[in-house]
C-alpha cells in the first residue's frame, strides 16, 4: 500500500466512524482544496454518495469564483448544501477593518455557531491538517468543543488505537478532522491522482496564484508560475514559506490563531 493509499484509508475509516456515531452530522465545505479532497473521500467511503449535509459559511466577502464553483458542483454531484451567513453582523456593518480577528469570529465562527444551533448538529467534519500551523499540530481526530463552542487545548481527551471520542455531553459538540494527518503536498498529490476538481484560483495567472483561499480582503495571492497541479507539487517541495502566509488573520499577532481557534474557529 503506498503513502496516499494509507492516508486515504485512515480518512475513510474516520469518516465512517463519524457517520456511524453521529446522527446529527455535517461537513464544512469551504470550497478550498482540502474540503474538496474531504468531499471526495466521503464519496469513496460511502460508494459515490455523500450522505452527510455540507455547510458553507458565506461571509459575503468570498472570492466570486469560489461561489461559482460551489454552486456548480453542488448541482452536479447532487449535494445537500446548507449555506449559512451571519446576516445580523453583516447588517451591522461587520468587516475586516474593524479588526481581522473580530471579523473572523463574527462572520465565520459565529456564522457557523448559528447554523449548528439551527440544525442541532452534534458532529462537524472539517478539513484542517496538522501541518497548517502549530495549534492544529496539537489537534485530535475527534476534538470536543464545549457549550460556548470553546476548545480546551490544555485538557484534551486521550485518543489511542483509533478509539475516538464519540460520547459527549448535551450542549457540546465534536469536531472531526479526517485530514489531520495529511500534508499540503499530500493533498495536491491526491488531487492529481484522483483528478479532483479544484477552483482555478489555485493556478497561476499573470505570475500570481492563491495557495490558501479565504475572504478576498484578507487573502493574498503569492508570486508563482505554477499553472497546473504538477507545477504546484514541484513548487511546494521547494518552498520555504508557510501555507497560510497569505492569510492576514493568522498574522494579526503572535497567537492570533490560538485565540481564534480557542473560541471555536475552524
Amino acid at each position, binding site marked *: 500500500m503506498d503513502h496516499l493509499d494509507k492516508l486515504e484509508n485512515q480518512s475513510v475509516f474516520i469518516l465512517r466512524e463519524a457517520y456511524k456515531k453521529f446522527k446529527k452530522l455535517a461537513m464544512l465545505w469551504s470550497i478550498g482544496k482540502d474540503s474538496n479532497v474531504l468531499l471526495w473521500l466521503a464519496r469513496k467511503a460511502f460508494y459515490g454518495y455523500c450522505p452527510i449535509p455540507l455547510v458553507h459559511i458565506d461571509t459575503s466577502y468570498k472570492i466570486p469564483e469560489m461561489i461559482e464553483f460551489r454552486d456548480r458542483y453542488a448541482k452536479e454531484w447532487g449535494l445537500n448544501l446548507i449555506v449559512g451567513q451571519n446576516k445580523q453582523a453583516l447588517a451591522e456593518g461587520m468587516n475586516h477593518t474593524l479588526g481581522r480577528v473580530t471579523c473572523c469570529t463574527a462572520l465565520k465562527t459565529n456564522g457557523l455557531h448559528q447554523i449548528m444551533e439551527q440544525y442541532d448538529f452534534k458532529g462537524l467534519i472539517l478539513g484542517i491538517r496538522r501541518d497548517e500551523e502549530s495549534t492544529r499540530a496539537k489537534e485530535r481526530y475527534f476534538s470536543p468543543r464545549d457549550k460556548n463552542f470553546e476548545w480546551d487545548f490544555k485538557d484534551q481527551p486521550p485518543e489511542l488505537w483509533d478509539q475516538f471520542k464519540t460520547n459527549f455531553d448535551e450542549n457540546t459538540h465534536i469536531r472531526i478532522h479526517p485530514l489531520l494527518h495529511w500534508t499540503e503536498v499530500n493533498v495536491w498529490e491526491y488531487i492529481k491522482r484522483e483528478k479532483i476538481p479544484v477552483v482555478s484560483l489555485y493556478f497561476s495567472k499573470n505570475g500570481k496564484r492563491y495557495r490558501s483561499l479565504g475572504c478576498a480582503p484578507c487573502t493574498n495571492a503569492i508570486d508563482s508560475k505554477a499553472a497546473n497541479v504538477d507545477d504546484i507539487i514541484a513548487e511546494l517541495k521547494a518552498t*520555504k514559506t508557510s501555507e497560510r502566509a497569505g492569510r492576514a488573520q493568522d498574522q494579526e499577532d503572535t*497567537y492570533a490563531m490560538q485565540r481564534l481557534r480557542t473560541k471555536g474557529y475552524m
Partner: protein
Amino acid sequence: MDAPETFHGEETVAATSETLQFVMVGHVDHGKSTLVGRLLHETGFIPDTKVQHVKQVCEDQGKGFEFAFLLDGLEEERDQGITIDVAQMFFRTKKRNYVVIDAPGHKEFLKNMISGASNADVAFLLIDAEEGIQEQTQRHAYLLALLGIKQIAVVMNKMDLVGYSEEVFNRTRDVYSKYLASINVKPYSFIPISAYHGDNVVRRSDKMPWYTGGSILETLDNFQSNDDRSKLPLRLPVQDVYKFDKRRIIAGRVESGSVSPGDELLFLPSGKSTKVKSIEKWSAESPANVGPGVSTGLQMEEQIFVERGEIACRRDSAPHVADRFAANLFWMGQKHLQKGGKYLLKLATQEVECVVESIAKVINSSTLEEISKNAHEVAKNEVAEIVIAVKKPIAFDTFDRIPETGRFVIVQDHDVRGGGIILKAVENFGGAI
C-alpha cells in the same frame, strides 16, 4: 544563537513511498521538543517564515533561539517552556517519509504522551546527561513496552553540559540498560547528542570521537518498518452496513490477514457465515484482494444479518469468544478505577458494558514497585493486572497474537480513561455480572 543552515531537503523521496511514525519521549525538560525542532530545521522542513516568527518571539522574551518553540506553538507552552500536548510534524529523507510525534514529558500530561505514543512505530527515549534517569524516563519506557513498541533507541541529550564525557555516558547507559532489561526491552542503540548544538542529530559530531554509532537521522533510517500483518489470520471488524442503493455493503477495515471474493467468512460473536461475493470500490477497479489497513466494503453471497462490532474471520483461525479476560491496564482517569465498577469497553468496533472483576496487582509504572495485591482500586498513572467481565461475549485475541484485536480502551464519563492489552481469556465459573 542563530538558527543554523539547513542540511539537504531537495533530494527527497516521492510522497508515494513508505512512512515511519516515531515518538520522542522522556522526562520533562530533557530536551525532546528542542531535538525535534533541531531535526526538522536541519533537514529543511521548517518554513523560513516560521523560523523568523520564532526568532522574534524569542527576542521579545529576551532569549536565544529556542528550537522547541518551532513545535510548542501555544502561548502557555512558550511562557512556561513546557510541552502541554502532542504535536505531530512531517519531514522526509532520501529513504522515506517521517511523522514525528513530540510527546510531553510532564507527569500531568501523561495521557497526551500515551495518545501520541500509541500511534508510533518506533521511539526515541531521551535522558538528560546531566540530570540522569528520572521518574518519567522509566515510566515512559514501561508504557512504550506496554503499547507494543519494540524498536526503542535511547538518546543521551545535553552531552555539552557534561563535557561530552564518555564516562558519564557509559555510567548512565549501564544503569538504564539494567532497567530496560527488567521490563524486557532491548534498546536499539544509545546515542550521545546535544540537541541544542546539533551534535549527532543530523550529522555526526567531532566532539565525541569515542562514539562510533550513527546520528539520530542515520538511526531513524536504519529502523525497520512495521511488522507485516498480512500473514496473520484475517480480522475484519464490521464498522457499519450500508444500503445507499440496491447493494448491501458490509464496511470495515482489514486489521490483519487478507480477503478475496469467494472466501468463506465467519462473523463472531454471532457465528453467522457466508461467502464474499465482491469487494466494492468507488471510482476505481475492484481489487482481487484487500489486506491490512484497507478500509473496504464487501457484498456477501447470502443476505445474513450482521452488525457493527462483529469480527469477520476464517473458521480455522478464529479469535476467542468469551465474556472474561485478563489484561494489563494503564489508568489515566482522575477518578480511580474501582473493583466492581461498571465501565464502557471498546475493542475494535465492539462496545460493551463491563465490570472490573478483580485487580490482581497494582504497580507503580515508574519504579515497578508493587503497590498492592488484590487491590480495590487503581489510581491515575498506575498500571494493573486485572480481570474484566463483559456483559455479553465478545470476540478478541491476545495482544501478543494480533495487537489490533487484542487491545481495548475503558470509557468513563464520555472519555477514554484507560487502555489495556489482553493477556488471556478467562474461564467462566458461573459468576454473574
